[in-house]
């Protein structure tokens, strides 16, 4: 029997930018080392509100002597995240995970491109961390495009600067980095990358990923994206977290973000 539901203790839960929070949770060391892209369902221990857990990506993982520390980077989107944000140090949370599949890594590829919009930086940051740890000489091959509406929504940079040499920051209003959409910045660089020798990873709002799909064209670049959808079970049982993707025959099929994903090939995703 899997035992992947844990009571964790909040070590830190800080508003690092208006409406953006960094939460650090201590868990027993039986919490499995997450693969990049995986997430947890988080609830407040003993509380019936929010009723369902909320899916949150694992942003970092550290194995300490006799316990594990994981971090979450999250944005207040509604009631559930609002309640999370109100938790103080030492509060207890119920953490179910790690759940879902992970990004496929290609250690042999020359270029690794990350494209993150807003809070989408969270799972990509764990991926970058993983690559640095497991693939040698990778920092110089990693190119991180990080976008947000304004400087206020640029989060996760402190960790990234320790991982990647090449970080491009874009804001819609130019308040930090370039004044451009993050997809635009990448599009301008696209010729620098050989499709056959480049792995692209993206996570962000639907609009961003849709735009990216247009830019990448018909499958020349292999691009993996993390998708989000409301979840109930997180384990593949309820069919609640469906997204439309092309199946092998090219027909529409509804796949489960929680167990078929959250990582999908961008080329397979059907946008509304």
């Amino acid at each position: 029997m899997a035992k992947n539901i844990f009571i964790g203790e909040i070590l830190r839960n800080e508003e690092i930018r208006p409406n953006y929070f960094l939460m650090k949770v201590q868990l027993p060391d039986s919490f499995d080392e997450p693969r990049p892209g995986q997430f947890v369902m988080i609830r407040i221990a003993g509380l019936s509100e929010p009723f369902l857990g909320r899916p949150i990506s694992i942003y970092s993982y550290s194995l300490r002597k006799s316990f594990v520390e994981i971090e979450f980077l999250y944005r207040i989107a509604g009631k559930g995240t609002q309640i999370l944000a109100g938790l103080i140090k030492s509060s207890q949370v119920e953490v179910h995970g790690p759940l879902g599949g992970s990004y496929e890594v290609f250690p042999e590829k020359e270029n690794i491109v990350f494209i993150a919009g807003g809070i989408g930086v969270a799972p990509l940051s764990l991926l970058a961390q993983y690559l640095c740890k497991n693939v040698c000489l990778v920092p110089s091959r990693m190119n991180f495009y990080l976008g947000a509406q304004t400087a206020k929504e640029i989060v996760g940079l402190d960790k990234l600067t320790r991982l990647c040499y090449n970080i491009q920051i874009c804001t819609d209003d130019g308040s930090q980095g370039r004044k451009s959409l993050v997809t635009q910045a990448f599009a301008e660089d696209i010729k620098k990358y050989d499709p056959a020798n480049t792995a692209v990873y993206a996570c962000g709002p639907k609009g961003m990923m849709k735009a990216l799909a247009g830019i990448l064209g018909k499958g020349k670049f292999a691009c993996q994206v993390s998708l989000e959808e409301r979840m109930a079970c997180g384990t593949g049982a309820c069919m609640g977290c469906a997204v439309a993707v092309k199946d092998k025959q090219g027909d529409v099929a509804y796949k489960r973000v929680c167990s078929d994903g959250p990582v999908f090939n961008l080329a397979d995703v059907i946008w509304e």
Partner: protein
Amino acid sequence: MKAKTFPQMAVQLGKLSLKNPVMTASGTFGYGEEYADYVDLNRLGAIVVKGLSLQPRLGNPPPRIMETAGGMLNAIGLQNIGVDAFIEEKLPYLRQYDVAVIANIYGESYAEYQKVAKKLSAVKGVHALEVNVSCPNVKKGGLSFGTDPKVAAMVTRKVKEETDLPVIIKLTPNVTDIAAVAAAVEKAGADALSLINTLTGMSVDLKSRKPHLKNITGGLSGPAIKPVALRMVWQVVKRVAIPVIGIGGIVNAVDALEFLMVGAKAVQVGTANFINPYATTDILEGMQNYLQDNNIKDINKLIGTFNAGGSSCSG
């Protein structure tokens, strides 16, 4: 725990013998394997699988779920792999376990119900059929079969024609008089009843002025509906002689025992699995502990012991 004091948990639902009264509710436990990492499936009274239709169903476009106060709405749209794929791909897995497998079936016409029932009756490893006449999410069929006593009775008769398996009719709560539907279905030959399915509800987003579910309405489940479920089980138990399975908002052993006390012979655990994947076995253990603590040697001694006469004035 001494073997001697271990309470007797087996229940008999007509021809169907169950190890214990804790079943999973259709649509909330996948095809069993999704929870096999969490729960020893052999310990369950029965596994009711996700609703099966003749053809595979794509299901509804997302978003499909939304949280509400003390519950959730879903409009999955009965996404499923179809009865043939179930028999080929999922049933062999379930056959490895020593657990009653109940196939929840769904059709858009009498003929479809019949075909699905027939296919499932021809294979080994299915112990009963649960007929969903109540799914509120699909425009055709669904709601209407279960809301009209005559139509519900006809579905029952049609399915019974095609199978020797025990037939459980799963009732919808979205009716004026559930006991009347129950009585009609009993007369038509149903071997057991299960209730309730979800209450039809809706949730909207003020900002976008749109529904939270693409399907607009969805089925409400979870603790919020428990009082309605308990009331309906009580009304039906008083009216029919066939066994009744209680469903709706059960999240712990006390909830489950309440349904049994009111007269249900077994219970199904649904939404609770989502917030606690160990819910079914946690509930089973909680029930056993309760019986032991209260020196009740057989779960059947508790079933139907409700004394509606009125409570003595509290406190």
